[in-house]
């Protein structure tokens, strides 16, 4: 790659980053104007912190990972900036903590992209797959015993360390994708062409599929036990997507979809909380002020927003319970309107596209599968929660990546971004070496 071309890449990245910071700044200025009637410059500090931290991250990446994708960091920064504005608006108590998590997240992103586990074409990640998986599952099992919920009620998914809480199921998301990518990269030939014939179908070789199903089943049981439906759904979707990407056999997808349908029906029959979610999705209106209050308020928020939105600080999205985390998208719909929600959808689409692009260009099966899995997971998570708040699919409690309040989720999203950055740089390096 010529120097000129690399220069334009950098210019693009910097322009985008500047725009993202400017957007955040403008958001805080208008919040301050609406709430106080004047511009309180001190109130702009989260935008400044985000700006300084993301520019520093950009400088580090330019120095040590110049061939990485220039679009990924600015997109994440813009989504984070939007998230900070929303949290300042909706749940100001959490603002300091969220800013702290953003800075930590950027650090984690740089760490994943540049430190030894990811260097050497991700060899460490690949080689020690069982170690990572065991650690992830161990942490998750610990939450079964010592799990807490910082808000005092609801699913106990967090591990507390003094005043800092972390959600191990978020960590397991990355670990699972790494494990699956590493395992499938080794066995894909066997899974793609092997197996015995049974009439018109070819049955995949069970001994090779066994460990995969075992690991996956174990984690899904753990998640089902913890009633973290959103995470279980993400795992399953990503698992199927990676299996399909590795083997190219549609039969896996159909069988998987069938399994999903069966377990969904079983879940509906067995668990009250599943039935509640599905009923509230199918017809929320009979219980609009009761159990379906949240989803109905979310729909009203979108309707109130219209095309242009009510303007930051001028709507009433706080009527929606936990609007700052699961329902951040509804708040965007009310205050920024269709213009804002469309932009968010496009940003996620571009993020997934760049991830798949890095996967295609990586030139290494493990890296390809890893990038596919990570992009699918990010995209699926965004889709599930955006669809959930819009009543397109039953609601499952996952965060909108980079936007919602939630430290663990933010940190892990940034770790995923770091891995994608590293993989995108691999393709650049390979092209460079030739």
């Amino acid at each position, binding site marked *: 790659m010529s120097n000129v*071309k690399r220069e*334009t890449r950098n210019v*693009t990245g910097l*322009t*985008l980053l500047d*725009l*993202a910071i*400017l*957007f955040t700044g*403008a*958001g805080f*200025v*208008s919040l301050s*104007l*609406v709430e106080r*009637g004047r511009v309180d410059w001190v109130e702009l500090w989260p935008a400044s912190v985000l700006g300084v931290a993301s520019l520093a991250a950009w400088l580090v990446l330019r120095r040590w990972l110049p061939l990485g994708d*220039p*679009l990924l960091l*600015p*997109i994440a920064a*813009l989504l984070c900036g939007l998230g900070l504005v929303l949290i300042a608006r909706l749940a100001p108590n959490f603002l300091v903590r969220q800013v702290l998590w953003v800075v930590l997240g950027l650090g984690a992103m740089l760490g994943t992209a540049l430190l030894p586990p990811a260097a050497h074409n991700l060899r460490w990640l690949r080689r020690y797959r069982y170690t990572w998986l065991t650690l992830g599952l161990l942490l998750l099992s610990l939450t079964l015993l010592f799990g807490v919920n910082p808000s005092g009620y609801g699913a106990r998914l967090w591990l507390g360390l003094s005043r800092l809480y972390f959600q191990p199921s978020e960590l397991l998301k990355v670990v699972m994708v790494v494990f699956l990518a590493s395992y499938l990269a080794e066995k894909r030939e066997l899974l793609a062409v092997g197996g015995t014939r049974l009439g018109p179908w070819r049955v995949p070789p069970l001994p090779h599929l066994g460990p995969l199903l075992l690991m996956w089943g174990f984690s899904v049981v753990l998640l089902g036990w913890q009633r973290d439906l959103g995470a279980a759904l993400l795992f399953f979707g990503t698992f199927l997507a990676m299996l399909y990407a590795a083997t190219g056999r549609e039969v896996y997808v159909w069988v998987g979809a069938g399994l999903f349908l069966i377990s969904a029906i079983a879940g509906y029959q067995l668990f009250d909380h599943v039935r509640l979610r599905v009923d509230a999705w199918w017809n929320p209106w009979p219980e609009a002020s009761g159990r379906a209050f949240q989803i109905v308020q979310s729909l009203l928020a979108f309707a109130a927003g219209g095309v*242009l*939105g009510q*303007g*930051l600080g*001028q709507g009433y999205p706080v009527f929606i319970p936990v609007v700052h985390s699961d329902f951040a998208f509804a708040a965007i719909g009310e205050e*920024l309107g269709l*213009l*804002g929600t469309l*932009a968010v959808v*496009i*940003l996620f689409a*571009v993020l997934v*596209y760049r991830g798949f*692009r890095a996967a295609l260009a990586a030139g290494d099966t493990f890296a390809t599968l890893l990038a596919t899995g990570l992009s699918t997971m990010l995209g699926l998570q965004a889709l599930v929660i955006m669809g959930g708040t819009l009543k397109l699919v039953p609601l499952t409690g996952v965060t909108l990546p980079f936007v919602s309040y939630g430290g663990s989720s933010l940190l892990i999203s940034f770790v995923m971004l770091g891995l994608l950055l590293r993989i995108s740089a691999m393709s650049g390096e390979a092209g460079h070496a*030739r």
Partner: protein
Amino acid sequence: MSLDVAIFLLRLIMAAILYAFLVVVFIAIWRDLRTVSRRAEEGAVEHLGHLVVIAAGETPLLPGQRLPLAPLTSLGRAVTNTVVIPDAFASAQHALLTWRAGRWWLEDLGSKNGTLLNDEPVPTNGPVVVGPGDVIGIGQVRLKLEVE
């Protein structure tokens, strides 16, 4: 300027910034795809490297001429070779250049007058590694390997 107007203007500015961001993103993607498609048009073999003619001997080859390399490049007098060397001292099937494990390997195919690598005869018992800048000698022709 009243407060309401300022707030309204800010809303417009925020929307403009948001969509300016998306426009820049799309321009970047468009540029990226254009480079990819251009690279695909240039062909896949191109990047492996060239043999540059240094000395042409009595052959119609021209000094400075660049001969593109394929992953399996055969050299010799017969017209079936990838690189035809119509030198009186070249055998019909003279030598073979192979791209394997990220390196170029040169093998003498039992030629009558032997193959030279940097003016040393290449052993006949198997392929040897050739690096960029090495000079391959067949008859009176000298070819330098250039890797991109």
